[in-house]
């Protein structure tokens, strides 16, 4: 399928490509494979999902028109609302913890002159592990029989603090949050560290000459200079926390006990594949898309208003 179309005169002025018919055809052919792949497995499901959410369908028989009744049902679905609440708690807590602890770790690494590369690499190891591996690992750490955590509490004489970390509906969600933060901490710390290293040291020196103490220097130099990085870490953490919690929740609790750790994706999957409510599940997916989209767009708009083009 080689199209030799080299008759077109060549504009040799660098940078400025004059538009010629050949370019359009070549561009079309070069984009075509990507367009097919994208259209088939991205655009079409996206559009079809919306269509589906406006119907009632079990995945096999003929779909019937349902209007917005799926969405109406969602508003009154207590399990869904609980899942949404858990999801929001998860997102907010995880994003705050990743930012605070990530910045803290980065500040430590920025000061440690010996072995920085080593510590950085070590903190990054969980990032390269799969959610499944991390989830299984932590399900054993939390295990009441041979788990590292409870037996560790015994070891240091704090046996009274032993918990059923994943079995107690009041704390299970937070136990899962700890796992997600553990996995991603190194990632956010490395981004913060890279950001810290772009702050010119003259800023600190002049602040020091003006008599600013360490805390003031942190507040008036580090924090303002790091705002773009805070935004980046927030947006990375945010989009991840909304939609990348299925694996961890599924492996650790499957949404239990009694939906205490149910998140939107686990509920969507159980609706689709246990109850066969394909169109209802599609509506759940769409609501999640709207929430993620609004959160990202809102954050980007905020970023632009703060003139933090990144």
């Amino acid at each position: 399928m080689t199209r030799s179309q080299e008759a077109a005169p060549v504009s040799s002025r660098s940078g400025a490509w004059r538009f010629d018919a050949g370019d359009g055809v070549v561009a079309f052919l070069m984009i075509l494979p990507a367009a097919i792949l994208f259209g088939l497995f991205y655009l079409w499901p996206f559009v079809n999902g919306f269509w589906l959410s406006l119907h009632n369908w079990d995945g096999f028989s003929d779909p019937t028109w349902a209007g917005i009744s799926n969405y109406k049902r969602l508003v009154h679905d207590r399990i869904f609302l609980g899942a949404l609440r858990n999801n929001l708690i998860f997102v907010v807590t995880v994003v705050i913890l990743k930012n605070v602890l990530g910045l803290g770790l980065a500040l430590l690494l920025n000061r440690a002159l010996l072995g920085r590369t080593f510590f950085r690499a070590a903190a990054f190891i969980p990032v390269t592990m799969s959610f499944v591996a991390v989830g299984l690992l932590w399900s054993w750490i939390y295990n009441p029989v041979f788990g590292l955590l409870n037996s560790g509490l015994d070891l240091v004489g704090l046996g009274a603090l032993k918990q059923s970390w994943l079995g107690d509906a009041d704390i299970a969600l937070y136990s899962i949050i700890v796992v997600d933060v553990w996995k991603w901490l190194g990632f956010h710390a490395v981004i913060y560290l890279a950001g810290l290293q772009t702050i010119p040291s003259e800023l600190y020196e002049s602040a020091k000459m003006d008599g600013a103490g360490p805390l003031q220097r942190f507040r008036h130099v580090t924090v303002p200079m790091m705002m773009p990085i805070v935004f980046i870490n927030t947006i990375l953490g945010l989009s991840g926390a909304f939609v990348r919690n299925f694996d961890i929740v599924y492996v650790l609790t499957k949404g239990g006990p009694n939906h205490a750790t149910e998140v939107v994706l686990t509920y969507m999957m159980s609706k689709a594949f246990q109850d066969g409510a394909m169109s209802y599940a599609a509506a759940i997916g769409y609501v999640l898309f709207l929430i993620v989209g609004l959160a990202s767009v809102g954050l980007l708009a905020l970023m632009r208003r703060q003139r933090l083009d990144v």
Partner: protein
Amino acid sequence: MRAAANPPISLDDGAAGHRRRGLMQRLGMRGILELAGIYAALVLVLFETLYPLLWVLFGSLKTKQEMLSNVWGPPSSLVLQNYADAWRIAGMGSRIVNSVFVTGSALIILVAVATPCAYAVARLRFPGRGLVVAVAVAAMLVPPQVMAIPLFLVARDLGLINNRLGIAFIYAATSLPLSVFILRSFFVTLPADLEDAARVDGASRLEILIHIMLPLVRPGVALILIFGFIEIWNDFFLAFLLLRDPSVQTIPLGLVSFFQQYDSLWSLYFAALTITTLPVIVVFVAMQRQFIAGLTAGAVKG
């Protein structure tokens, strides 16, 4: 990466020979204590990160009884049989083959499809160019997880359920927007003169792309390969959605089903996790600079 010596301690003096004395003099007692505190905190972080992993390695070598009686410590003897048993019972061999096949195919498809698209968007002028970029950016805001149900239905209609090559195409599609976006930013920076010269010599666009431009954007290709590898090799969600038959399942699925299928084969679970996790960690440690730079690139532009 520039190591900006961060006040209040600046240690970037060249006097390596007198380092210790220099340290004492420059920091004073308070500075030394501060540094000790920093290292103590770092060791704590190191411990909470690495000890759980070491614990899995320990546990994989213990007998089941010892796992319960000696939770924290190293194994008293090495039960290597755990590995052989885990390998056999969990069917690790075929899972590893599946993971390699799926990830490898997906990455080949991804690079083959994303590169010409990114090149066209970056270097050619044609109507609708802006639209392609806008679609790629918009798609990055739509995580594939939210359309799992319609994606499942499309795959079912095309007969791609339980199809390893099918899921490879779907993985490539989900990684496509970000990859095009990244590669485009690499192509944009290349000087036009190179291309002009090649065109004068009569080279076609495809030849220019393959022989001249592609070697120059190798770092960009490496970047999308690293991203794609971590994402696809570790994925559970889409595999769970699309690979139902045990014979086509990838490593993450295999681990979960092994864990759920057999009750309390604890030391074998630990061995299975070690087998699947250790190689990736070793590869990471060997290439950690590229990995870290790759995974955080773009997030921070100097």
